């Protein structure tokens, strides 16, 4: 009888304890959903590699040792906003996902930005580019981590105009991302005294770019700005070489190029391209060590892209914030993430701004010549480092309603 009483008391105490924990960490588990393109043109940039990066962040945070239970699930949004938002709803409503991470393809990210806000959860963007996520669409539930269109435009655009590339023609992917990148780059070109001679919008995941390239060629612009990404950028660059565009005196500006794109093109075709990234694996010992570990687990032993690095860094900071305030309530965690300074081996020290913009340095890189490359992933030279304070759009210029003026 006595024993039964004790066990009941212990049981009740445990139940109360569990109940208290339940009010903090929902159902005792922090559930991270990695949502991205797993099968199409952005799958190497983000894809399964982002799941690997998230897992590494959970390991490095030491969740198991700290007694925190963290689960990672993943899904393929197929670059379709409707597919993406219905997955997000199911995750939040029935699968008890606390935070969605990555989400390349700006149109999908903007949709999930809204869903996350409606549900009061947390959204850490690494793969998507549109600067609207911290501009007019900014949300108290979203942090835009790795890079954005303003940063790319500012880094690459102004560097190119400075070296004489003052007339531009844009080849733009016809959706939210391409439009934002084109808009932000055009602003930089005009501000630096350049001119935009024309633009053409191509459908996402187009195969043949020759027609668009021919239009760019006849515009006689000095610079053909590629406001597209992934497979579209690869095919544009490859076919531009075929049509003798660079030999004819025009230059290509890849506005968003990832290391996997350069790898896929090969140095012979990609050499000399200049663009902006916020992460390169060969920056210092810590990034090199990360790349080694990542590569062992990643599909086809790929090295990490900046999107993968961003997923790692964002998840790490998220878990630190959850640990600090002992809750996984989306709005509160994002608030805490903005309060705490960030620090991780990949991006160094940084912080998250009121509009949800994560701040760190950016790098203007140039693709090496085949003769300069010492091993298969030795692909970039760092031409310049853009300090964190200058890399991103100033807080007061984004029209984010969260920022008090």
């Amino acid at each position, binding site marked *: 009888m006595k024993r039964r009483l004790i066990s009941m008391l212990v049981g009740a105490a445990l139940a109360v304890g569990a109940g208290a924990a339940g009010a903090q960490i929902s159902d005792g588990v922090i559930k991270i959903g990695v949502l991205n393109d797993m099968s199409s043109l952005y*799958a190497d940039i983000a894809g399964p590699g982002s799941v690997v990066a998230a897992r590494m962040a959970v390991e490095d945070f030491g969740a198991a040792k700290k007694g925190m239970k963290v689960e990672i699930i993943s899904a393929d949004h197929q670059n379709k906003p409707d597919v993406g938002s219905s997955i997000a709803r199911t995750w939040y409503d029935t699968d008890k996902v606390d935070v969605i991470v990555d989400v390349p393809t700006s149109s999908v990210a903007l949709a999930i930005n809204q869903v996350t806000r409606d549900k009061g959860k947390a959204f850490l963007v690494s793969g998507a580019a549109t600067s609207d996520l911290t501009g007019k669409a900014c949300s108290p539930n979203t942090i835009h981590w790795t890079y954005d269109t303003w940063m790319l435009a500012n880094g690459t655009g102004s560097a190119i105009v400075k070296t004489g590339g003052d007339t531009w023609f844009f080849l733009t992917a016809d959706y939210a991302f391409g439009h934002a990148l084109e808009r932000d780059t055009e602003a930089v070109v005009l501000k630096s005294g350049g001119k935009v001679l024309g633009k053409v919008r191509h459908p996402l995941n187009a195969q043949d770019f020759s027609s668009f390239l021919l*239009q760019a060629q006849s515009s006689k612009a000095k610079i053909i700005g590629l406001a597209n990404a992934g*497979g579209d950028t690869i095919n544009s660059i*490859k076919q531009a070489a075929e049509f*003798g565009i660079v030999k004819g005196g025009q230059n290509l500006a890849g506005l968003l190029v990832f290391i996997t794109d350069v790898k896929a093109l090969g140095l012979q075709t990609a050499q000399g391209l200049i663009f902006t990234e916020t992460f390169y694996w060969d920056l210092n010992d810590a990034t090199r060590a990360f790349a080694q570990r990542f590569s062992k687990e990643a599909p086809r032993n790929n090295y990490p892209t900046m999107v993968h690095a961003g997923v790692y860094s964002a998840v790490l900071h998220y878990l630190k914030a959850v640990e600090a305030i002992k809750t996984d309530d989306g709005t509160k965690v994002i608030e805490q993430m903005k309060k705490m300074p960030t620090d991780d081996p990949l991006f160094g020290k940084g912080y998250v701004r009121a509009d949800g913009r994560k701040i760190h340095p950016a790098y203007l890189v140039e693709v090496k010549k085949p003769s300069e490359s010492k091993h298969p992933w030795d692909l970039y030279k760092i031409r310049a480092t853009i300090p964190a304070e200058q890399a991103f759009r100033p807080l007061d210029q984004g029209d984010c309603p969260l920022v008090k003026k």
Partner: protein
Amino acid sequence: MEIFGIPTQALFGQLLIGLINGSFYALLSLGLAVIFGLLNIINFTHGAQYMLGAFCAYLLLEKLGIGYWWSLLIAPLVVGATGVVIERTMLARLYKLDHLYGLLLTFGLALIIQGVFRNEYGSSGLPYRIPEQLTGGQNLGFMFLPNYRAWVIVASLVICLATWFVIERTKLGSYLRAATENPQLVQAFGINVPRMITLTYGFGVALAALAGVMAAPIYQVSPQMGSDLIIVVFAVVVIGGMGSIMGSIVTGFGLGLIEGLTKVFYPEASNTVIFIIMAIVLLIRPAGLFGTQK
């Protein structure tokens, strides 16, 4: 001189590019039309087989050092042989059933093949160089025409017309056509109809692989290269008239031209224009432009 605000010179360039894309549509839709005409199978694996052709060329070069020209011969043979195996082991069981079963089987196969290659090679694709003899290009005055693209137009025209000739104008072709009309009767004349059908499927698949090898130097060799193209090619076949050989050739080139023009006048619609045409054609001539109502 200008037409609708576009200089004529630029327009010529765009038309030529349309023709180049049209050659791929024609080659692929030709294979589909041959297979549908003789087997009554809607071969959804066609895009994957086109991709296999390109990968075959890539692997021949990387692993065995065999270059483009031999690949043009070897890749279609290898991929065609896999087609023969698929026909013998799987498709042959479906001829008596509804079209839908063939469609489901080939669609499933396509997904499996693409999935396997994506797992193995990723989605960014692999580079394949233009053969040395065809690098560079000609300045035509109104545009710079890469030699390789010129070769694609010529090669594709020759292959398409040769195929049309064999099927419509030779004795072998007449057997094939007769076998589609009435297999029992043709069998009664002592012709091995099942073997003929197997070889026809193999040939259709080989055509897809050949298109794949020709595409490898232009596009990235990537697992989804076929799935992007196949939907358009199906529209081409439907517009041309299911099973019509000449229909698929003419429509292939024609739609390439129309798509090329769309890319100049309203580029945003270049992905959809073919489907709009398909809808219109189906409303007016349900059997397609060159098809005959059965």
